[in-house]
Each structure stands twice: as C-alpha cells, then as structure tokens.
C-alpha cells in the first residue's frame, strides 16, 4: 500500500515540480524587471533542488541528496551575486 502511495506521490511531485520550474522560467523570461528575473531564477533553483530530492527518494540513493545540497548551497550564491549586481552595479567592490 505504502509503495503505491509513494510511487503516486513521487510521480505527482515530479510533475508539479517540473510545472513549477516552467512557471519560474516564465518569470525569468518575461521579467519585466530584473528583480523579477532574479527571484524567478532563485525559485527555479529551489524547485530543481526539490526535484533532485524526489529523484533520490525514488531511487533510494543518497547521491542525489548531495546534488540537492550543492544546488541549495551554490544556487544561493548565484542569487546573491545577481542581487548584489542589481543593488550596487558590481558584484565585488
């Protein structure tokens, strides 16, 4: 029973997460402001991280969690870099 539940919920989660990525990508594409695009990119990263986690749960392999960890850690760095660039006009001053 729980196996079926897991399969279904994982499948749904993947689809929803992929949809969420599509919506976030739309924000990145459309803007209209640069700030909207940065927020969209950050959402894209978060969704990708969650997607990697669902893969991990489905596969039962811890390696996916590391990928998720890296996306979480470094996605943040990218967002900060963009934010800093928009705020100050340069990333490192």
């Amino acid at each position: 029973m729980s196996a079926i539940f897991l399969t279904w919920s994982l499948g749904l989660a993947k689809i929803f997460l992929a949809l969420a990525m599509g919506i976030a990508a739309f924000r990145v594409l459309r803007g209209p402001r640069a700030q909207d695009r940065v927020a969209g990119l950050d959402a894209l990263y978060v969704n990708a991280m969650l997607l990697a986690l669902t893969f991990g749960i489905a596969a039962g392999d811890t390696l996916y969690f590391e990928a998720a960890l890296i996306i979480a850690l470094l996605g943040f760095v990218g967002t900060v870099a963009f934010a800093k660039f928009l705020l100050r006009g340069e990333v490192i001053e």
Partner: protein
Amino acid sequence: MPYESFLIAGLLLPFVGGCVAALLPTNARNAEAWLAGTVALIILALLASAYPRIVDGGVIRFTVEWIPDLGLDLSLRMDGFAWMFSTLITGIGFLVVLYARYYMSPSDPAPRFFSFLLAFMGAMLGIVLSGNLIQLVFFWELTSLFSFLLIGYWHQNAQARDGARIALIITSAGGLCLFAGVLIVGHIVGSYDLDRVLASGEAIRAHRLYVPGLVLVLLGALTKSAQFPFHFWLPQAMAAPTPVSAYLHSATMVKAGVFLLIRLWPAMGGTQEWLWLVGSAGLITFILGAFFAVFQQDLKGLLAYSTISHLGLITLLTGLDTPLGQVAAIFHIMNHATFKASLFMAAGIIDHECGTRDIRRLSGLWRSMPITASLAMVAAAAMAGVPLLNGFLSKEMFFAETIEVHDNSIVDQALPYAVTLASMFTVAYSLRFIRDVFFGPASTELPRTPHEPPFLMRLPAELLVVACLIIGIVPAMTIGPILHAAVRAVLGSTLPKYSLAVWHGFTPELLMSIVAMAGGVAVYFALRPYLLSGIEGPPVLRHINGRRIFERVLVTVSWRFARWLENILGTKRLQTQLQLLAVFALMAGLLPLPVRWAVTDYGSASGFDPVFALLWAVGVSCALGAAYQAKFHRVAALMLLGGAGLVTCISFIWLSAPDLALTQLVVETVTTVLLLLGLRWLPRRIEKISPTERSAGTIRWRRSLDFVIAACAGVGLATLAYVTMVRPAPDSISRFFVENAYTQGGGANIVNVILVDFRGFDTLGEITVLGVVALTVYALLRRFRPAPESIPIPEQQQAQNVYDDRHPDRQKGDTLKDAMATPALMMALLFPVIGVTALFFLLRGHDLPGGGFVAGITMAVAFIVQYMARGTIWVEAHLRVLPVRWMGVGLLMAGGTGIAAWLFSRPFLTSYFSYVETPVIGSIPLASALLFDISVFSLVVGATVLMLIALAHQSMRSHRTPQAREARTREAAPMKPAK
C-alpha cells in the same frame, strides 16, 4: 688513469665555475679572475695529462646513455684535433681572464662577465668534445647565446645591443640550418654518432640528400665563421669588451665553423660541390676581408675584417679539398689564434690607456708605450707573414697549396694570383696597424695620456707573442707533434707529406711571399692619401653595407610584412571573427556528409517521460531566451543561461551521471559570478548605428545571415549529438577503465581514477595549463584599460552615495551596510559549511562522486562569497588569501607525488593504495592518488580565486580615478593643522 672521467669533469667544470661566478659580489674582480683562471688551469692540467693518450692517434671516449631508444647518448670524444682545440680554448681562455681582470673597469659588474665567459668556455669545449652531432649542435647554439650575452655586456650602449642582436640572429639561424643538416646526415648514416658518421663518407656522398645536407651544414659553419655573405655580424660584434673580442671573435668561437668543416671533411668533402661552395666562400671572404680591413679607421674594426679574411683563408684551405689543405688549415687555426688574440689585447691596451682606438687620432705611441708597441709589431708581422714568425709558415703552406692543380678550371688557375693579391692587402693593413699607430709624430689631444699598462695586463699578450716567435723559429720541435696528432685525428693513418721547416729553398711560394710583401708595402703607400682623408671604408664599396641590407630585410619581414598581413587578414571586429569561426566549423562539420550522407540507424527514442520533456522545454526556452537577450539585456541573458545550465545539470542527474552534475553545477556557479564580474566592465551597447554607414536593408540582411548561420550550426550540432547518442557506443577503451579502476587504481569512482591515476600525466599537464591561464589572466588584467564609460563607479552606487550624503544622520556607505546586514552574516556563516563540503568531496572523491577539481571550485566559491559579502578591502584585511601560493603548492605537490614513484623505482606518477585501519572510523582506503588529488584541489582553488579576484580588483580602480583622488584630498585638506 681514468681519462674518461677527466672528459666529463673538464666539460662540467666551466659551467659549475660559471654558476659560482654568478653568485659572487658585483665588485669581486679579483675573486672572479682567480676562480676563472683556476678553472682554466685545472682543465689545462687535465688536458696535459691526457696528451700521451691521444698523441699516437688514440681517442678517449666517455658515453652515458640518455635516450637509448632514439640512439641518443651523451657522448664525449677527444682525439688529437679536439685536444688541440681544447688546449687552444682553455689556454687562450686563461690568458683572456688574466687580461680581463685589468681591462674591465671596477664599475663593470664582474660576476656577469666572468660567469658568461666561463659558460662560453664550457660550451666551446662542448662543441669540440662532442661525440654526437645533435649534442654538438646544442653546444653550438649555446656558444651563439653566450656570444650574444657577452657582446651585449655593456647593454646601456645601443651599438652593443644592435651588434649582439645581429650576431645572435645570424649565428643562431645558421645553427638551425646546421641542425637540419645534421638531421639529414643522421638520416643518411642512421646514427648521429661522430665516429659512425666519419666512417660512412662514401654513403653520405652517394646519397641523393647529400647536396641539401651539405648546403645546410655549410650554412651553419659559414655563418659561425663569418664567411661571405654572412660576414657583417663580426665587425658589429666589436662593440663587445675587448677580452671578448680577443677570445670569442678571433680565437675560438668564430673558429667553430672551420672546426666543423675540417671535422666533417672526411665524411662530406672530396666532391665538386664541396670544392666550389666552400672554396669560393673562402676565397671571396679572404680577398674582401683583406681589402676592407685596409680601409678601417677603428683598430678593432681593422682586426675584425682581418679576422674575417684569415677565416676565409682557412675556409679556402679546407675547400681546396686536399689532405694537405686540411693540414695547412689546422696549422693556420693555431697560428691565427695566437697572433690575433695578442693583437686584440694590444688594441685593447691602446684603447684602455689612450681612451680611443681611432687610427686617425693615434700616432707615435712608440714613445709612450714601447713594450706594447714591440708586442703589437711582432704580432702584426706574424699576421703579415714575415719569416721567422708562425704566420709565415702556414702562409707558405697555403701558397704551396694554391699552386697545386685542383680541378684546373679558370678559377683554379687564377687562384695563386688572386691569393697573392689578397696577401698584399694583408701586408698593407698589418703595416698600417704598425706605422699609423706607433710611428709618426706623437699624437696630441688624446682623452688620456698614454703610458704602459700594468705588467700583468701585458703578460698575456707577451706570452702569445713569444709563442709566435718560438713556433716561427723552431716549428718542428714545438708545434710539430701537436699538429701531427691533430692531423692524424682528422685524416687517419694515411698522412700527406708536409714539412715544418723554416727554409725550403727558393720555391714558388717563397716568391709569392716576397711579391706579397713588396706589393703590400706599395699598396699601403699608394693608398695613404685616401686613408689620411679620414673616410671610413673603401671607395665605392663602402656604400654597400651588409648590415644595412640585413636590417632592411629584417624590418621588411618582421614589421612591414606583418603589418601587410594584418591589414589583409586581420579584423578588429569580434563579430566578423566569430562569424568566420562559426562558418568554418560548420563547413568542416558538413564536409564528411556527402561521403556518408545516409545515416541509416536513427536509433529509437525509447521511454517518453512527460516530466523530462517539461524540463527540457524549460531548458530550451531559457537557452533561446538567452540567445535573444544577449544583445539587448545582458543580465537577463546571463540569468537565462543559468536556467539552461540548471536544466542540463538536472538532466545529468536524471541520466544517472551524478559526478558530471556535481561538476557542472559548481562550474555553473563560478561562471555566473565570473561573467557578472566582467559585465561591469563591458562597454555600453551602441544603440544607434550611424545611418551613413549602413542602410537598414544591409543591417537586416546581415542579421538574418547571422541568424541562419547560428541556426544551422545549432541544429547541426544538436542533430549530430542526437545521432551519436542514440546509436550503440562502439567498443572503446572505456571497458578497460571500468574493469581495472578498482583492481589497479584502488578507486570505485572510475572518472576520478582515470583522472588521477590512469591518465595522471594528462591531468598534470592540464593543471599546469590552468595555472598558466590564471597567471596570464592576472597579468593581462593588470594592464586592463576599460571603456571610458565604465571607469566611474556604477550609477546605483552614485545614487546611493548622494542619498547618504543628503541625510545628516547617515554616513557614506550606510545604504550598502543596511542592505547587506543579514545577507552578509549568512554568507560569512556559509564559509565553513561550503569549506566542509569541499573537503568532503575531496576526501571521498576516489570512490564516490567528487574529486580535487569539484572540491577546488567549491572552495573557491567559499572565498568568493566572502568577497561579495564584505568587499575586497575588508576580506583582504581579515583573511589571507594567497592564490599564487595555493597554485605553487599544488603544482609542486603534483610533481612531487609523481617523482616520489621514482623512489620506489616505478615510472613517473605511479600510484599506490592500501587500506588503513583506524580506531573509530574503521578501515579507510588510502591511495597515493589522494595526494595528487589534493594538489589538483590546491591548484584549482588558487587559479579560480586568482582569476576572480583579479577581475574583482578592477573595481578598486574607481578609488584611484583622478576625481576620486581629488575628492579624497578635498576631504583630507581641512583636517590639516593650519600653519
């Protein structure tokens, strides 16, 4: 006695001495002279002790295997000829060192001079002692190099720099020709070993590559010995200090060319080509050199042209292609070295004591320096070929040889007359040297009052002149055995008959000598009015200046031609270049299509997954958006690129390639930061295109063309990738890696084992390249000139500064501080977290996804985050980031782990692994490859951080702009106490 080890000791000693000499203090003239003199004397002693071994045709050999697979050994070989040359090199070297001690002024840096001189001595010994042709060429080029350095010793003097450059270009170009020639000879013989080459003369002469090989070898020899038409570098080289001229440019280095000719004569001589090429070069040089020498007004210039002429004489003797000619050539090499070195020393003494070497200003020096005058006179007489001096003996041999019939052509028949004519000029310039300098009224208005030099400065010249006299009077007893040994080494056991007697009776050659003497005196007095007129150089011919022609050619080739090519092929527009590149790549990709147009097996795309398709829709739209926005909105394009990159990473994860995904993710992040850093400095987009330049139609046409090219390239690449991926992979080397990664490399992560173990040498090369790239980026950015509009601080900062200034309760920079308060704290806390992650990836990389590269970039990100949070100044005040040191440690460690394998007598970079039992954690796999991985890590951290920081430091510029400096001084001014 182990003579064999003497050879290598004698060869290494000058180089070791040169290194020691370079380390002594600048003013240690005495210590330097002692050191160099001792080195020369030790080698002389070694040579003397080896004399009995070589005197009867014996050969001393010393061989060390170097690359036995290619038949290359370090091979030293000393026979009588090499012995004679070595003795000449070290003997005159010793005298020159003694002379230089007094010649060089205390303000000249002594270590440079003596270390170069010693190193040159070693290189020259290397030429004559080489038993292998490749090795000979190596030392040959080394002498060119040290000659360059010694000519340019007074590098503050433009003439010295020019002379050095010309000499280097001519002689090293000749050296390259020689190298090619040697390769041809080696190809014909099948070995570069000198003994085998000398033994296979028949094969060489009969081979169809004989003529190209001969021409190339001759180009090397003739440039080195300053033969026509390459003679002009030698007079230019006279800008060197006189000891250098005496040593390199009369006694030894310029003799290397004739040495090689005589050495290779048994193998390559004895043909019409040899006779004509070598003989005519020698004859022309002999005559022209003697003619030009008469008209020189500079003492050293006269001696330089006379050296050219005498080298021509020796070349002519070799070129006459007879055994007796070689005997006379060898004999004249020795004689010329003795009298010419002493003449150069005398010229140097005159220059040193009078302050000038212009013959027009010198006169009557006999009164003030009688001993030097007598020395110079005896040496000049030997040069002219006066009886009872050594020059006479070899000149007689030379005349006798020219009378002999060779190929009985017109040139051959005219030869005796031509050489007698040239000898007249020889006598004339010798006479001019003596009479114009030492006799006549005492010269006035010299920069210094002439007087005798110190005894020890004169001693070397005295010893050489005594040698001229002794050899000239009792040749058979003194030089006879040495000449015999040398001749025997060159010609083998069948020696021609030659006699070293002073008196041969009334022979044609004696008549030629007498005619030359009388004619020379007559020529001198006939030309005297012209010479006194003070014009430099001979009539008419002085306008043909070899040096000027050479420089014009050089300028044409290296500057005009380059500019012309640049005009034709170059473009300053990046777009055009990229377009060409893309089109070329596209064409290259399409080229094989007609051959195998039909791709039969398109495979089958199995298992359609809606999530994956959705993901890809996101990725593709991001990529397209990035391409679209690249022109109009750079930041947006960068973000879209990030989105596309992310989807790629997720695809890697989906297709179970977690380590690829890891690497791609970290690279993605670093690239984003890097591009953002660069974005600040990009010039603003030019919105308007001037309508005069291009109409709207052409713009549209160009853009659509670009679009078509881009679309074709993109679609083509995608198709190619798809077709490749859906087909079954051919059985390649990957199976080997999969099977052996764990058993032989001790790691379960195959990619990592390949990188650090199987292909460790590749990785070593790659990280070296990465280091070089990082340093290059750093060096280029130091000279970075940004577009004028990106020099001031960005608009946002300006606005925020204005806002801060307007409010009295705020300080400049408060906006930034407020905005960054929380993020900066978070980012500071992230440093250890990212650091631990990096360490984790590094340590477990050998068995699970990770490794030095990923870990290195992750660590670099940790540093960059701190820079972003707090700014360059704060970070560098609190955290010592030394990227160059990280890189250095990485490279050294990588090399070290490779070399460590040698300690266990394994090949370079062999790795070792085992399991170590630890108390708590249990059994840990430990491989020496981990050390290598750590060095990769260290280098990657250093290189990445160096590049990013170099870019980040550009922002410090705004603090250095004139406006900023002005503002700072305005702020600081009221603080100063009023006076």
